[in-house]
């Protein structure tokens, strides 16, 4: 099955303006698709039917009254990862400790979508507090991959990826701390983009690791990704880590192609553990880019091997500190006890799942007296080394191309050992540590399962990453394939 015009943002925007469909009809179609598929996928934790009705009616009014002023996102359905706050709508981060939490405010990135006229269909399932690479760590239910429901969709934004892969919505928002947008995009055959750290406000994003977290979109095409990115990106005074640098126009140069560009191929990303089918898919994609006039050259990022270890100090350290706020006092679950201390211990024991506890323990240990220098300070220094290696390579090449995930989607339950799960993100984590933009685009199929190509650009060269990925999509058809579950949704 291939794409229908209504499962892309650009297609919806054109049809809405041509008057061949209304926002209310797009919403109804999205709900029907959800109804037809989600018992088998589990992409959604909550539907926002009443809110969506109002938003769709308002979008139709705007499109009727001033179609040319309306954003391309006006009237187009979207799904939002459940770590992104929406005022008054239950937001759980996939955790029992936040069951019933209704945020008193809306995240800036989502507020910008709402201002553009987006129609929010629901909140999507994810690994608890975005910690995981398979969405099996959701406290509520795992997510199944629309290409093969016995396999995982990747994680942690597995619900947002699967909702697009099943054509329930044309786009969605996720968050990426170590690969949580790009890896599930790769495993579900959609496009996923993690912008430069600081480009999209983190205000209202439930924090996992604040120096690494970044919100970004999923869609079928890079064009759609650029449309959504242009709306959500930009400085926000409510996030002090948000970047004050002027925002480049990601749309005007999107079609400029890759002729004459120098693309680096980091040799450390093609090592043991990389499946043959993934290697072939990515190598074929490089030939396509070469055919479009790009010059490919091998480069080296020698400390790639240390990135995973660095991440598994820095991210758990920040998580142990961020998750200290879940104390049974201000929001969410409280398990009673004889004293406040007993209440803390019982609330956090009951409310957190196994992976969250593991990372809180690891992070607390790495920050504890006597171990801080050996672990946390050392990891922060290696982080500098990793970022400097990228900076050096970018003096030589314009962007990097490599696999997103070393493997295609694996079976549910196949990676019970935590370390084997952590290795899923070996090729995406370095990008977060250096704060770079990275995008994954579908570039092949192995036994019915999608493969992803990752494009990495220098900080604030988000438009360049999009331009390379778009050029690739213009020359290939992988992004037009649809999953078997999307057929049910149609």
């Amino acid at each position: 099955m291939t794409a229908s015009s209504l499962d892309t943002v650009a297609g919806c925007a054109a049809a809405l303006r041509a008057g061949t469909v209304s926002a209310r009809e797009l919403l109804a179609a999205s709900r029907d698709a959800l109804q037809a598929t989600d018992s088998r996928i589990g992409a959604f934790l909550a539907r926002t039917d009443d809110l969506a009705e109002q938003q769709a009616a308002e979008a139709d009014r705007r499109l009727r009254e001033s179609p040319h002023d309306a954003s391309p996102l006006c009237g187009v359905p979207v799904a939002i990862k459940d770590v992104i706050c929406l005022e008054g709508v239950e937001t759980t981060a996939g955790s029992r400790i936040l069951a019933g939490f209704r945020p008193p405010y809306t995240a800036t990135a989502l507020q910008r979508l709402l201002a553009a006229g987006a129609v929010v269909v629901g909140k999507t399932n994810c690994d608890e507090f975005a910690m995981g690479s398979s969405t099996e760590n959701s406290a509520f239910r795992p997510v199944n991959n629309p290409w093969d429901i016995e396999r995982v969709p990747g994680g942690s934004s597995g619900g947002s990826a699967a909702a697009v892969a099943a054509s329930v919505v044309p786009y969605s928002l996720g968050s990426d701390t170590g690969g949580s947008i790009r890896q599930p995009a790769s495993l579900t055959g959609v496009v996923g983009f993690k912008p430069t750290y600081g480009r999209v406000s983190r205000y209202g994003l439930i924090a996992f690791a604040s120096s690494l977290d970044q919100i970004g979109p999923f869609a079928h095409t890079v064009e759609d990704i650029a449309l959504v990115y242009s709306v959500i990106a930009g400085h926000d005074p409510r996030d002090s880590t948000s970047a004050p640098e002027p925002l480049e126009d990601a749309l005007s140069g999107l079609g400029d192609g890759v002729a004459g560009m120098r693309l680096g191929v980091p040799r450390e990303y093609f090592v043991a553990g990389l499946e043959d089918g993934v290697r072939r898919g990515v190598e074929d994609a490089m030939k396509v880019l070469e055919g479009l006039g790009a010059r490919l050259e091998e480069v080296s990022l020698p400390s790639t091997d240390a990135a995973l270890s660095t991440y598994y100090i820095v991210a758990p350290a920040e998580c142990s500190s961020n998750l200290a706020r879940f104390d049974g006092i201000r929001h969410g679950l409280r398990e009673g006890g004889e004293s406040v201390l007993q209440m803390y211990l019982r609330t956090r024991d009951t409310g957190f799942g196994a992976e969250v506890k593991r990372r809180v323990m690891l992070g607390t240990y790495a920050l504890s007296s006597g171990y801080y220098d050996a672990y946390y300070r050392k990891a922060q220094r290696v982080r500098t080394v990793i970022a400097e290696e990228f900076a050096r390579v970018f003096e030589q090449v314009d962007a990097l191309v490599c696999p997103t995930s070393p493997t295609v989607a694996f079976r549910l339950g196949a990676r019970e050992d935590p370390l084997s799960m952590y290795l899923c993100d070996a090729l995406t984590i370095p990008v977060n540590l250096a704060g770079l933009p990275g995008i994954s685009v579908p570039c092949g199929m192995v036994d019915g399962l999608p493969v992803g190509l990752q494009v990495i650009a220098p900080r604030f060269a988000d438009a360049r990453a999009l331009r390379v990925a778009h050029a690739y999509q213009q020359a290939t058809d992988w992004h037009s394939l649809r999953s078997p579950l999307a057929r049910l949704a149609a």
Partner: protein
Amino acid sequence: MTLSADDIAHVAMLARLGLSEDERQRLGAQLDAILEHISRLDKVDTSQVAETAHVGGLVNVWREDEPEPSQSVDAALGNAPDHDGTYFRVGAIQ
């Protein structure tokens, strides 16, 4: 690096995590394996580099001290498991 039962108990208390005996044992073994993997950091020479806390290098982001509307007390208390008037309510501190 091997974590003793006492280490695990100490860290769990620092993190305010009540863990079952089973969980403590399982976590001990898993953390050992993860720390073993992490030890490869020692191979990277970091004698000449500073730490990165924030990739953008931003420090001390200030704004003008101008009053703005903020959340109401009701909104702030709206998700509290227990409250008393305009206060969060907790059990006795012992």
